[in-house]
């Protein structure tokens, strides 16, 4: 076989089901420990965040109204697509400096986490809803509803597992999300976009951006059409900023450590509103 040049991938953003470059035209060079350039990564701008929020808002209602069983199947499909790219994710994590053994373990854990959360879609409401025995003749129930659009700032120190542990509780609960990936370990997040794009997740439900946290966190935190913000960061100043800027539209700001989140249905509740409805009982 004759020698052929390997086709290298252009790493782009994932907005509204499409893979655009940053509207700003900017990229940053991702360099490994030996100083070799791994790839050029799109450096998202404020406008890219706003575009992603528009797509997220457009998709939120339909996704929230999608039956729990169907959401469950779609998220399970993510696990199927991930498994089929197992080797690719291990290679990419290794290129970012993770040892092959640790990378293989992380990808396994990530796939299992998706399977775990896929099963929550049609169960958390049954566990956390209530029928309330009010003193008047009313049928009174409290149930969870998706908040809408959730901005997610992924942990800096965890790549594939960190991203998935952050977005799964959000989308399992019927929200759409706009994710900012780790600046130093963005590759698996970008490849995850390809997985999401082929998993029947409706366009706009998951939007993935790469870029600088210092530039984009303030945009996400202050955006008036973002309902909630998940910030995975131990930085006190970032946490303070998120709460301060989030106050303008009373954004629900959830603060977590700079690490992958443990699996828990209570993380799903972080992005749910409780709605209580009174229906009269009578003739």
């Amino acid at each position: 076989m004759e020698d052929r040049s390997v086709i290298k991938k252009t790493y782009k953003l994932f907005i509204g089901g499409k893979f655009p470059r940053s509207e700003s035209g900017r990229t940053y060079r991702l360099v490994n420990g030996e100083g070799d350039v791994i790839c050029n990564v799109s450096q998202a701008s404020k406008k890219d965040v706003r575009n992603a929020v528009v797509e997220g808002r457009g998709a939120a209602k339909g996704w929230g109204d999608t039956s729990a069983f169907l959401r469950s199947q779609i998220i399970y499909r993510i696990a199927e697509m991930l498994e089929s790219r197992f080797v690719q994710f291990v290679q990419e994590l290794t290129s970012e400096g993770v040892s092959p053994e640790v990378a293989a373990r992380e990808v396994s854990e990530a796939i299992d986490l998706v399977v775990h959360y896929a099963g929550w879609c049609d169960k958390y409401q049954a566990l956390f809803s209530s029928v309330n025995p009010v003193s008047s003749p009313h049928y009174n129930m409290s149930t969870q509803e998706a908040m809408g659009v959730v901005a997610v700032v992924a942990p800096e120190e965890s790549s594939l597992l960190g991203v998935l542990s952050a977005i799964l509780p959000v989308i399992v609960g019927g929200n759409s999300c706009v994710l900012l990936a780790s600046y130093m370990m963005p590759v698996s997040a970008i490849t995850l976009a390809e997985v999401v794009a082929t998993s029947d997740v409706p366009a706009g439900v998951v939007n993935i951006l790469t870029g600088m946290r210092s530039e984009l966190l303030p945009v996400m935190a202050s955006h008036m059409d973002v309902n909630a913000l998940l910030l995975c960061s131990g930085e006190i100043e970032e946490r303070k900023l998120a709460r301060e800027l989030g106050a303008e539209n009373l954004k629900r700001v959830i603060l977590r450590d700079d690490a992958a989140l443990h699996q828990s249905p209570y993380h799903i509740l972080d992005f749910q509103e409780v709605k209580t409805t009174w229906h009269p009982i009578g003739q």
Partner: protein
Amino acid sequence: MSDFSKFTDSNNDEAALENTSLVDLRERYDLYIDGGWLAPEEGEYMDTINPATGKKLAEVAVASVGDVDLAVQAARSAYEGEWGYMSGLERGKLLFRLARLIQERSREFAVLETLDGGKPIRESRDIDLPLVASHFFYHAGWADKLEFAFPGRSVRSLGVCAQVIPWNFPLLMAAWKIAPALACGNTVVLKPAETTSLSVLRLMDLFEEAGFPPGVVNIVTGAEETGKSLLNHPDVDKVAFTGSTEVGKEIQRQLAGTHKRFTLELGGKAAQIVFEDAAIDQAVEGVINGIFFNQGHVCCAGSRLLVQEGVYQEVVDKLKERMNQLVIGDPLDKNTDIGAIHSSQQLARISELVACGEAEGCELWDSGQELPKEGSWYRPTLLLDCAQSHRVVQEEIFGPVLTVQSFRTPQEAIDKANNTPYGLSGGVWTDKGAKSFSITSEIRAGVLWANTFNKLDPCSPFGGYKESGIGREGGVHGLAPYVEIGF
């Protein structure tokens, strides 16, 4: 039969005044800290006024930063001491006993609430006080069952809770704050609204009588500065606030960067949607109750009426007829429907917003009743022909003023209902069951009433979406803000 008509004519002149002799007002109220009454360190007091007469009822202490610090210290000592070690069952028993004492002394508190706040005695007697007692009774039973509220997880208490409440339901808001905090094992420093401190101060007598250890609940009275120093005290673990959205946002900003958790219960601008297929008379009665309950000083008030075109004129005509029958006047009169506007400041705000509505092109209609000469009053008012962009449609008026808009399709009603920054409550009137379920699902608000309105119950969670707040109060969901959920 002629005698009977006297009782059914709501405009009859014969007052049926509630007896005020049950209420034993002191001239001056100090702070309640660590199980005793403490004079404020700076010796400052403020007057508390009866809004129905404009006359002074008593003086109430103004707590300084130093006083607030003492209160927080007392709450911390109680948390680390006897209260912190008490079993859930024993905590519950004290709360049960307190609920019983409130029931026994209910009428006295109802009169006090009406004197200090201006709300009709019929409401304070039949709604506020029964709900206060039931709120403590309900939460008493949670104290030894918290692990069942959070499946698969262990929980523990948070510590010292700083709570700031408004003037519209003084004792009820205190109960909403104190009961879940104590049931979950925390201690409390609470600041009532500066104009309505008396009932919660009197409640402290019952806490003593029930046998609560000192420091478990502390009351610091005062105005905005007292509230700020409480919420910003470094040894507070949890903040709970009910009040305006503007202040709620400011609190979120101030708490940024601290370890404190917070829940906010803020403003609302609820839509009442009346469909053509509704039972119109019932709907009209529900709309009247929805906006004129407590003079419209209600965060979940149904302050925007959306009527389907085919019944628009009929509904408006019936509303006017009903509004003309409302009895405005002495809140202590058992026949009174509409009491006093809570303060001259609130009266000014209502007047300013209504004037703005007229300037923007709304048609004003108000009921023709004569108003008392002393005190603060406002006639039940309709603003017709409102547009979605009008300030009176977008902003909370917090008074007896109802904006009216029409709609053609269910989708138009949903869009209009959701088109404000608020999302606290909403009402739907229709005889079609499937429609009421679909509309209540589409309204982005925390509490939805179908063919009813303004119903409250301690086991029913209350709280808003969007800019109406963060968190829930009441029910199993109202416990979460007062515990740390373990893993």
